[in-house]
């Protein structure tokens, strides 16, 4: 549009004027005068960049809400690395700017004639080496927790799932360009909740198709505090299953079924009598008349959780949008699943299906 052109020109003009105001002498080819301004330029740019991160955090341009059991660890690690690199960046930036500021060419001064210092080299090799190595080792557990699925391996080895480890299974098939979900029927889930053995057969066989499966498109439903095991497949190209709020990402490989898991720690949806709504949060309120703590639902737009594709997959790559609904209790989830099953089995009433 025209405003686009106008603003481009305006910005160039402003940038040019800013430069002119700041650097009239620096741009002169003569060896004298105004040289320190280049140090200012570098210094200001580096300073603004250092400030950009806190500024972005203030503006809310930051990590999305973190709501899975392992997302806290990932965020902690992110913050540790941010702190370490931030300190390094600021340190190097200060030294760099200081050096530029302090040592512009001066005909009266000679450079320090040195070819380096063995001691210094040792120090600045050894210190980062130790730091980096510690950083590297420290993150192995978090990584294996997410991707190695020790809990499932243990269960498969033991031949039984312990009651506290009961999990939900979904098969998600990605294709150009949407996600198709397949849940076991409510009867199966109830059966699996009773008995920790037969469910492992389904894990091994990666959820074979059954006539009473419940199918949905682009929405995952799971339960707060319960592991959700996803059998990830794709029909055509590589897609990537990305749940930003769960800090989970896994490519779906053609020809393979890849297991992924996550366990949400917060619920984001409830039944309003007509349909399941997300964008809502449970909050503990003052004790009621019976003296017990009560939980109430509060609207919260940060609780709209989405599913995205993160591996380039063609034209509508950026439009493979799905939603994640985390139910507060197993009963809520089963209620939804039964409703979805009924909708799947509709034999009359051409109603306007939505949700």
């Amino acid at each position, binding site marked *: 549009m025209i405003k686009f052109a106008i*603003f481009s020109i305006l*910005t160039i003009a402003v940038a040019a004027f800013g430069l002119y105001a700041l650097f009239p002498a620096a741009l002169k080819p003569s060896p004298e005068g105004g040289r320190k301004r280049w140090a200012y330029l570098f210094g200001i740019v580096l300073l603004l960049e250092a400030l950009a991160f806190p500024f972005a955090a203030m503006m809310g341009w930051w990590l999305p809400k973190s709501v899975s059991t392992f997302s806290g660890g990932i965020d902690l690690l992110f913050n540790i690395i941010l702190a370490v690199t931030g300190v390094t960046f600021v340190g190097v930036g200060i030294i760099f700017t200081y050096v530029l500021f302090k040592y512009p060419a001066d005909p009266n001064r000679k450079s320090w004639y040195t070819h380096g210092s063995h001691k210094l080299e040792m120090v600045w090799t050894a210190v980062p080496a130790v730091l980096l190595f510690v950083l590297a080792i420290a993150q192995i557990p978090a990584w294996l927790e997410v991707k190695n699925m020790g809990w499932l391996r243990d269960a498969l080895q033991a031949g039984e799932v312990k009651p506290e480890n009961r999990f939900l299974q979904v098969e998600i098939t990605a294709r150009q360009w949407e996600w198709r979900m397949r849940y076991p029927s409510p009867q199966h889930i109830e059966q699996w909740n009773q008995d920790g053995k037969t469910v492992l057969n389904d894990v091994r066989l990666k959820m074979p*198709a059954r006539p009473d499966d419940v199918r949905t498109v682009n929405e995952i439903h799971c339960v707060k505090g319960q592991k959700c095991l996803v059998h990830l497949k794709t029909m055509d190209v590589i897609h990537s299953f990305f749940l930003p709020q769960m800090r989970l990402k896994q490519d779906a490989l053609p020809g393979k079924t890849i297991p992924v898991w996550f366990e949400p720690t917060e619920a984001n949806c409830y039944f309003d009598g007509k349909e399941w709504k997300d964008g809502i949060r449970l909050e503990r309120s003052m004790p009621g008349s019976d003296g017990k703590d009560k939980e109430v639902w509060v609207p919260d737009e940060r609780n709209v959780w989405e599913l995205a594709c993160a591996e380039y997959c063609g034209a509508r790559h950026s439009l493979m949008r799905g939603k994640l609904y985390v139910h507060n209790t197993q009963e809520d989830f089963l209620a939804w699943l039964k409703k979805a099953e009924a909708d*799947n089995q509709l*034999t009359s009433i*051409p109603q306007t299906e*939505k949700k």
Partner: protein
Amino acid sequence: MIARRPSGRNFLRMLLVTLPAAITCLLLAGCDDGYDVSILYTPRTDWLVVESLKDVVPTRYDPPGMLPVETLDHADSTLFGPDQKLLLSKKGTSLLDPRLLPFGTRGELVLALRDLAGRPAHPKIDISGDKFMVEEKGNRVSVNSLLEKELKLDTKTLEQGSMLYRSNCLHCHGLDGDGRGPTGHWINPHPRDYRQGIFKFASSAQVANRKPRREDLKRVLVNGIEGTTMPSFHLLKDEELEALVSYIIHLSIRGEAEFAVLQELIADAQQSPPPPSDPIILRVRNKADEIARSWLEAQKTEIKPIKPPEYKSEDERLASAARGYKVYSDKNVACAGCHLNYGRDAAFRYDAWGTIVKPRNFFSNMYRGGRRPIEVYWRIAGGINGADMAPFAKNPAAITPEEDAQIWDLISFLNTLPYPEKRQELKDKYGIEVK
């Protein structure tokens, strides 16, 4: 240029200038803002498929990048292989070329259509005139007002629909709803061309010129079409889906009016001397009126199952499937005639749009028109428009109880096919072997 000493004032000055500029940049963040007013719907220049191409049997799906009918313009194209010759023989009879019409006639048609349907930025359906009235409950009301009331084709909804269409559908379905957007050629099944006025999946009970109900279009948007590139849009708001449906109906009415009038004009041009006829603008309105009426009628009819089954146990369901097998293999019903070997060996064929389709393979566990029993019911009872799937019911508007029961049995039978264990049960209990 005088060398100035660095001073705080310079920084201040630079900040004062750059900060407002930076803030303006941030405020500028633009988004989709709909079509430019200068954009017009494009006049139709592609081949019209006027009769069924049933006797031309293709041997495979067409490769990406070109619709089968478009290969007619590239007679030397090797892309389409041997099937292209067959199609070429249909030039002039089943396939008509609107580009052969005189330039003036086509220009007149463009103006008439703009009068009818507006432009993408300001879409409308305007069939005004004394003629275009409908008798309703004793009152005479204009078609226009009915379209607004019953089909929600008011300008506000259409404008919203147009914006949504631009950001969600345009790149496949194209500006005119011709299914020839930039990505449209490259996917198969090709995106639906609305300009024929035919929509495959409908629950309306019309016999001739069957139009879908708004719910049917919305259902496709909500569920997507499994096994095709049509994704689900159920995360859009309800109101947005309604607006999209309205806009699609708008495109379809415009396109079908164009299609019908072009067909007439070509027929006229072949006669010499050309027969006397109405001015084009009137012809367009007459056609649009006809089309609008059948859309309106479709909203009132519905294929209603008489007695939805309630299976109390898996055995009952299996018994129904066994009865369904009998219906399936009934010579008079002739399901297997097209769905050869349960659709696994089905032959390719051309549909009403001149694209290549294949009867469903029942083992694939893929249901394009939806997998709910009621959706399958509509397709069996009322047929699939444009794809030669004939209605099972003699009169879809009044299904007989026997037909009803038979359809439900058929559905039970089809539902067992994708699952090996179910097929085994069918064999063990009823001796029905499906290989």
